[in-house]
Structure formats: C-alpha cells, structure tokens
C-alpha cells in the first residue's frame, strides 16, 4: 500500500477527484487531437490518435472510473503513458485537467478509501494529502489490464 517512496508523481483531475501516477511512465501530455473512433469497442475506449506516426489508443478515464461523461474543454488533456518502455504499450488517458508534478519523497501515504463501485479501477497505491486535497495514486498495472478490450 505505501511503497510509494522517492517517486515523482503527476497529478490530475478527473471529475471532482484528484489522482496521480508515476511521472516516469509519462511520455507526453497533449491537447485533445482528432480521435478516430474504433467501432465495436467498450465505451471507455475512445479510439486511436496519430502521435508522430504511431497509433495510440486513447481511454477516457471518466468512463473507465465510472464517472459521468462531459464535453471536452480547454483544460481537457491526454496523458500518454508507456508502462514498460515498449512502443506497443503506449496508452493515452483523457483527464479533465493536468495539475502538477509532485515529489513524493517523504510524503505520508495512507490506504485509499473511496467509493469506486462503478469503476474499472479499484486498487490504488494509496492516498496522500497535498494542498488540502486528497490525491489517489493510480496503480498503472491495474490500469493497463483494465484498458485491454
């Protein structure tokens, strides 16, 4: 639960909750480009984008985590992660807003307690408090498994 040490995290907002993931796995942060829908896929799979000639699937974290969908606005962004440094593991995550980079060194991590009934993601590395906000640290491995169709 609380093995989150010496790590740099990237925090972002989805719906009205704050989340973070290992910043070392993040490759790009993009504005929403044209997304090509891939038919016959689950609702959270928004489609694929062309990132410098590579095809990257994009998942809407709102849908994946069971929140209601909204229109994309100026703050909406795609965080592209590459979980295991292989190009074919690249995945885009649509979030409502990218917040900041947090040095997690020395931050006290507590077990996560949030109601995630509707969510495909249930396990988190933990929750910490930052600027009077609770931030839940996403388990990338679980995220990756959840994103497979």
């Amino acid at each position, binding site marked *: 639960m609380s093995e989150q040490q010496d790590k740099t995290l990237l925090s972002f907002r989805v719906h009205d909750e704050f989340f973070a993931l290992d910043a070392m796995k993040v490759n790009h942060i993009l504005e929403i480009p*044209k997304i*090509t*829908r*891939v*038919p*016959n*896929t689950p609702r959270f*799979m928004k489609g*694929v*984008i*062309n990132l410098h*000639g*590579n*095809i*990257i*699937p994009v*998942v809407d974290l709102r849908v994946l985590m069971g929140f209601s969908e909204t229109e994309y606005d100026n703050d909406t962004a795609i965080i592209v992660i590459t979980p295991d440094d292989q190009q*074919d*593991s*690249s*995945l885009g995550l649509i979030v409502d807003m990218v917040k900041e980079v947090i040095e997690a060194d020395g931050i006290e991590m507590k077990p996560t307690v949030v109601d995630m009934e509707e969510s495909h993601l249930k396990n988190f590395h933990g929750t910490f408090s930052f600027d009077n906000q609770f931030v839940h640290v996403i388990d990338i491995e679980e995220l*990756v498994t959840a*994103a*497979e*169709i």
Partner: protein
Amino acid sequence: MIDKFKAKFVEESLDNVNDLEEALFALENDMQSKDLIERIFRAMHSLKGGGAMFGFNHLSDFTHHLENIFDKVRNSKIEVTPDLISLTFSAVDEIKYLLEKGDLTAKDDLDEYNRMMGQIQNFLQGGGPGNQESISASDDNTPAGDSGEKTYLISFIPGEDLLQNGTNPLFLLDDLHALGKGHSIVYTHKIPSFENIESENNYCLWQIILSTNESVNEIKDVFIFVEDECDLSVEELGNGGFEMTPAVEKFIENARNSNTLIKVSDLKVLLNKNEIEEHKTEQGTEKTEADQGRKKSQLKEHKISSIRVASRKIDELVNLVSELVTTQAQLSVYAEKKGDNDILELAENVQKLSRQLRDNAFEISLIPMQSELMRFQRLVRDLSKELGKEIEFVIEGGDIELDKNIIEHLTDPLLHILRNSVDHGIEKPDERVAAGKSPKGNIYFKAYHAGASVLIEVTDDGRGIDVESIKAKAISKGMIEENEELSHKEILNLIFLSGFSTRDTVSGVSGRGVGMDVVRKKISEIRGEVTIDSEAGQGTTVTLRLPLTLSIIDGLLVKIGENQYVVPIASIEKIFALDKSQLKDSFNRVVIIDNEQLPYVDMREIFKEEVKESETPQMVLVRHEERRLGLMVDEVLGEHQTVVKPMGRYLTSHEVVSGASILGDGSISLVIDTNRVLQLTSTGKFRGKTKTSKE
C-alpha cells in the same frame, strides 16, 4: 572485440552445420556422390579451422577426427554406410552443442563428448567394411617404402597483405609438417631495407619439400583460408620418401643464396636420376592449376551471390520505408491541393520510386523456408527411428519465401504439427499392414501461394482422427452439450479449444503441454489461420494460412459512417455500385448481381454507425477460399498504398480491425480484416445473420 568475432563465427558455423546436415540427408539417398562427400568434408574443415582460431578447442579436435573419417571416404578408403551416416548425424548434434557451449567443463558433457569421440575413433580404426589394410596404412605415419607415400614440392608465395586477416604463415607450415616429413626453405630476399619495412606486411616466401601419404587435396586444404591471398603450387616430385643427401642440401643452399625458387624439374633430376617422367609431371601440374582455378572461381561466385546483414538492420530499413511511404502520401495530398503541375509531377515520381523501394525492401525481408525445413526433416527422421516407424517425408515448395518474423513464429507450431503426425498419426508398420496400407507411412509437407497468403499443408496417411472419440471427450469435459448437433468439421475444430488433448496418456513426444490450442494461438498472432481435416483411417491434413508480410499492403480506401477504412486489395474480387432497389430481398441479406446471388453484410450495422446512411452505397466483394461476401460501404474513395501499423496491445483482440494506417493528411484509417468478417458472418456472430455461399 574477440567476443564479437566469436559470435560471428558461431553464426557462420551454424550455417556450415546446416549445410552439413543438408548434404548428409542427400548422401543418405545417394551414397556414392563424390560432390556431396566433398561438401561434407569442406564444411567440417571450415568448422575445424574456425574452431581452433576462436578457441573452441573441443570443437576443433572433435571435427578434426570426424574430418579424418570423411577424408578416407573421399579417398575411397571407407565406404558410406547407413551406420556412418547415423554416426555423423549424432556427431552433428554434438557439434551444435559445442558451438553453443564452447569448451566443455561439466562432467556429464565431457563424458558424452568422450563417448562420441570414442565412437568416431572406433570407426576410424575398425574402419568401414573391408579395406582395413589401407586404413591402417594411412593411419600410422610410417614413411618410406609405403606404397602410398609421395614427395611433393610446395611453393607458397603469399601476397604482402597475408598477415592482415590474422593468418600466421608459420602455423600453416606447422600444419604441413603434421602431414608428413618435410623440409622447408624460406626466401627472405624480398624484405626491404629497414626504413622501408611496413611492420604489418609479409615479405617472406617458402618452398617445402614434403613426403606424405596424404593426397594433393589434403595438402591444399591446409591453405584453404588463404588461397586467395597467395600463389600456391603443389607439384609432385615422385613416389617414395625424401632423403636429404649432401647434393640436395647443396642445391637448396644455392637456391636460397641466389634467391631463385627451386624448379621442380631441377630437383627431380637430382632426386630421381634414373627415371625422369617430365612429361607426366607437367601434365600433373597443369591439372592442379586448372583445379585451383576452378576452386577459386567457385568460391568467388559464392561470395557475390549473397551477403549477410543483421536482421535488425532489415527491420530498420522496412521501418524507414514505411515512414517514407507515409510521407510520400502527404506530399501527394499537398501537391494535389496546390495544383502546381511541377510539384504534381515530382510527387508522382516520388510515388513511383517509393513504391519500388517498398517492394524491394519488402522482398529483402523475405526468406525462404528452406532453412527451417532441415529441422523438420531431422525431427521426422529421429522421431520415426525412435518410435520404430517407417516414414517417407516429402517436402514441396521449400523455396516459398515468407517474412522472417513470420517464419520465426512458424517453426514451433509446425514442429508440433509434425510431431503429432509422426507420433499419433502414422501407425506402426504392422498396424499399417493390418489396415491394408503399405508399411511405410507418408507425410507430405506442401507450401504454396494463394493470393496474398501462403498456404502450408501437412498431410499424413495415418490413422486419422476419430470424430466420435473427440465428441465424447468434449462432452465429458463439458465443452459441448450431449445432444448438440455438430458437423464433421465443427467437431474437428474442437481440438483447437484450450484444454483439449486427444491422447490421454502423455507419450513423452507430443502431448507435452503444447496442444493444438497453442498452435492456433501462435498462428493467429501472425494473422494466420489453422484448419484441420481428417478421416478416420485415412489420415489428417492440417492447413496453415499465413499472410505474406506483416507490414505493408495495397488497400482500398472506403468510407463507413464517419470513419475511413482500408480493405486489403488482395482479398477483393469486385466492386459494384448499388441501387437501393437492388436490395429488395434484404431480409435474407442476399443481393443479386450479374445473375448471381451474393450474401452481403452492411458494414454500418456491424460497426454500429449512427450517422445518416449514404444514398449511393457501394458493394465490395471479398473472397476467402471458397467463401464470398459483399461488404456494403457508404463510399469507395480509392486505392491507397498503406503501411499497416499495429494499434498497440490494448486493441490486438479486436474482432475485425487488425491494424491502422496513417493517411496523407495525418488522419487515421482502420484496416479491416476481411477474413475475420467472413468468419464471423458465417458463424452468425454478427447481428445481421447471413449465410455465405459456397461454390
């Protein structure tokens, strides 16, 4: 540095081993062929030489003894027998092992090594049937008086760059001395004065008078690695050994002082004053020179015909060409928008060139299956011997080429299929006779092109698959319902389900974990398909359908709903414009075109597109084997040369989209796997229930 060379040596040696095995197989069928024996000998010789050079001492020693056997075979002192071939086959395995391990240290390994070595030595001493005399004669090195001994004058005149590839001429002289008794003369007159010396050059030349039992070939083989860098002549001086007399010594001394090479005729006069057969010797010399010329030219031809490139570089090339094709498409779009004739013309030229380049790069990444076939032959041969079965294994279409990535994925599944055929398929000889078949079983391996695919069929005439027992087993495992009606083919397809294995007892050969479910999984990873057909008592055929390549295809760009899609042109038969009125019998999803009934699917429906329907839909007729199906699309946009890019691991299991391609304007079109659409349609998996027609 040296490790790099070692790796290279191992790689090249494996080629040699491959060649060796291939020649052995051929030799098994044609035991008299001199060419084959020569080829085997040569491969062994390269292995021996290279092994010593790169510190594979066991390998070198081992092949040295093996080579001795084949040297005797070459000189007709030993006959080729099935025993010899079997021994050599197991020796080849040991060679492979030695290549992998380097010098052996583990006790088990050494025991096995010594056991093999013992067998080889037994063979050498015991000899093949008959001819034992001559073997023992050539085995011990007693000179003088022996009928086989002859004396040669060897002139070895290396070029100045001899040392640059790491050759040490003194080692070559050592090798010569190992063949018999010799006397060498070194000429040093070419060494320049000190200030002009290039320390890396060789300035010496040698003449060697050698008495030996070995043949001229054996002598020349010492120089096999340097024959391009030197002038070499081996001339016969006469029968019998060589005695150093004061007269000869003086003669040599003179030659060395005057820096003129000894002429064979002069020396001969001195040695055999009585009988001078000058005429004969000259003939001999001419012949050796002609021989040498031929050998060299053969080597040269071989060098030019192929080059060795790291596969990583080929992957890189194919990737770069893919990028180029994408960029070229962008250029074409831009040129069309500009409407400038000059740019249009340029864009067209670039398109032509990149198309050619694409085809070329694509061809380079194809390799013939041949290299893998050897393993299959070996498997069938060894396994059938082990199981006491007689099997004739026939290969057809081994020159078919496939993308190397595909071949890599193909080997294991094919080995498994063959193992199944040998182990479960073909019966023992007595069973076969009882069943009214010939005692010898047959396995056919056939590869051929069909459209954009390559088909590989493995057929055996063994006991076949008992459909009833499969059904019973599937029921007992709860895979199907007891009263479920299944066709012959559907039942056979059950063996592809995971957890299904037709043999209850694991035979230690096949049934060892990897079943047909794994075969199918592996094959579908490379976008291929497996089917099986079998009649009980008649035999089984397993067919693999594989794509030619994984990356670049010619496609037809179509619009379905809001998206653009690519349909591979290779699978398209015809394109029709449709009139709404033609779809009157839409309940059955059959459209009549040119008096032909064709089943079709509405792609909008499959893709659950909600956008407004097109008024002028078009029909793309695709075909896979005997099945045809019309795909109704909103609009056909045109032909598109496309690089299929993977969509990442999250979408690999998508039911109909097998990749994506980037268009000239940077937008993405998805590639439709038409075979999957056909399959899903025929199994009624899509909402629009449709039957496909059979012709």
